[in-house]
């Protein structure tokens, strides 16, 4: 995925600006759902940047993983964060002055590092398969360990989730031991087929039988 040098440069600048703009919007949106998907937009731009580096597999995997993660994160944001629907104005920022000082210092440090580090010369030949070379450079001597670790992590995640959700919302799939799960069917009275009897007032409007007791 290599464009002409100028074209790739323009696209990378556009993607960088879009990523930062989406990230700013994460903190400016009132709705948690919008904040989550603004973050997704930012991360998709990052995936595009990785694609521009020639790391095809990593870029597409970033798009895949971030989409699924943000979709699930949206659920948790709605559960735990205030104002999920954005129906009221609110602000998500705290300690604005301290945060501005800290982020300015970090930005200055990163910019100084980027400008002062000795980058390799442009005459270095681009490898034929950047993903393979990156993988070898990161994990080369320890490839077997890494693969085993990956499989062990995956097995742990699957095992913990299945153990934690062995019961569905309406009770376990298999008959539970007595004392857990919903009451067995047939122990509740059958529902009335014709609704409340005529002549009786509906229960909601019936006055409370003993209001004086709550004095």
């Amino acid at each position, binding site marked *: *995925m290599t464009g002409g040098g100028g074209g790739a440069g323009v696209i990378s600048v556009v993607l960088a600006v879009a990523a930062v703009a989406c990230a700013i919007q994460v903190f400016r949106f009132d*709705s948690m*759902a*919008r904040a989550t*998907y603004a973050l*997704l937009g930012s991360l998709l731009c990052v995936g595009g940047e990785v694609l521009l580096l020639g790391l*095809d*597999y990593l870029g*597409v*995997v970033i*798009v*895949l993983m971030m*989409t*699924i993660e*943000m*979709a*699930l994160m*949206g*659920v948790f944001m*709605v559960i735990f964060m205030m104002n999920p*629907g*954005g*129906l009221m104005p609110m602000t998500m920022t705290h300690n604005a002055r301290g945060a501005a000082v800290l982020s300015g210092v970090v930005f200055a440090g990163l910019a100084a590092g980027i400008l002062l580090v000795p980058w390799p010369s442009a005459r270095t030949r681009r490898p034929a398969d950047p993903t393979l070379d990156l993988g070898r450079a990161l994990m080369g001597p320890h490839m077997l360990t890494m693969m085993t670790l990956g499989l062990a992590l995956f097995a742990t995640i*699957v095992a913990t*989730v*299945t153990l934690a*959700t062995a019961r*569905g*919302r309406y009770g376990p*799939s298999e008959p539970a031991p007595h004392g857990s799960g919903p009451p067995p069917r047939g122990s509740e009275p059958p529902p009335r087929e014709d609704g409340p009897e005529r002549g009786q007032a509906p229960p909601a409007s019936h006055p409370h039988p003993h209001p004086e007791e709550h004095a």
Partner: protein
Amino acid sequence: MADAWWSLLVLPVVLGVVACAAAGLDSVLGASALYGPARSVRALGTRAAWPLREAGRLLGQPARRTKAADTALVRAGTALLPVAALLAGAVVPLGFAAVSDPGVGLVWFNAMEALAWAAVWLTGWGPNSAFSMAGGYRFLALGLAYELPHMFALTTAGLGAGSLRVGEVVAAQDGLWFAVWMPAAFAVYLLSAVAMAFWGPFDQPVGTDVAGGAAAELSGVDRLVFLGGRWLLLVVAAAFSVPLFLGGGHGPLLPPWAWTLVKTAAVLALLVTMRRALPALRPDRFMGLAWMVLLPLTLLQALVVSVVVVLR
């Protein structure tokens, strides 16, 4: 390999025609279930043309907005579903030529159909309606269940070919189709194709018990775009099973594009009839089946395929 720009315009047309045909089949099956078999060829044609009539009706229907709806998210969600389907369809070859054949075609397909997760949830969340939100959440639960076995089925096909490029997966099936020696992966892929388009036994996200679920508050063009996008996604998922497991365009006598269409039609007919043959599966119950049965099954299948690939 067609890298011509015009293939990008041909793709939505071809997918749309196939989707209309599949929707016509579904409509004929539904009408036969409700009203009995068609009495004449003309009646059969009328039943089969129902999707086009419904599309026309929806185009003329005024849009409905609920109170305090997040309209931007609704529009983003409904538009994202067909876009995801078209982007995923860009790597599906017709015969041996696709719109694009990147070196990571399998992962690209997976990433683009994962956009449907965002699309359905946004469509469910946006209208500020309880039933549509329930539908959106149901799709995420369904996605958790089917995604891992789906990914391992895709990986197994890539393993058999030794590459993530769709063209090489097709080329590796010159002699023996992958569906023959990777049947578990093929079956799991078909199940996940039905699940990713929330079709048939997995249609709880738009189920009748939540008044239409994620599509409950959609009307007019929004509804057409969303449900049409769902059909496109089903067609693309069925079409992708052909280069992955059914040999792509390989076959005697007919030209490759005809073989692709024939095989896609067979898979689509199976998936469409699955809707009325199987009851709806609740996503959290399917989660148990998917993670306890399908996941080890696909891992075992991948192990068997790896051993075969290493030994040959």
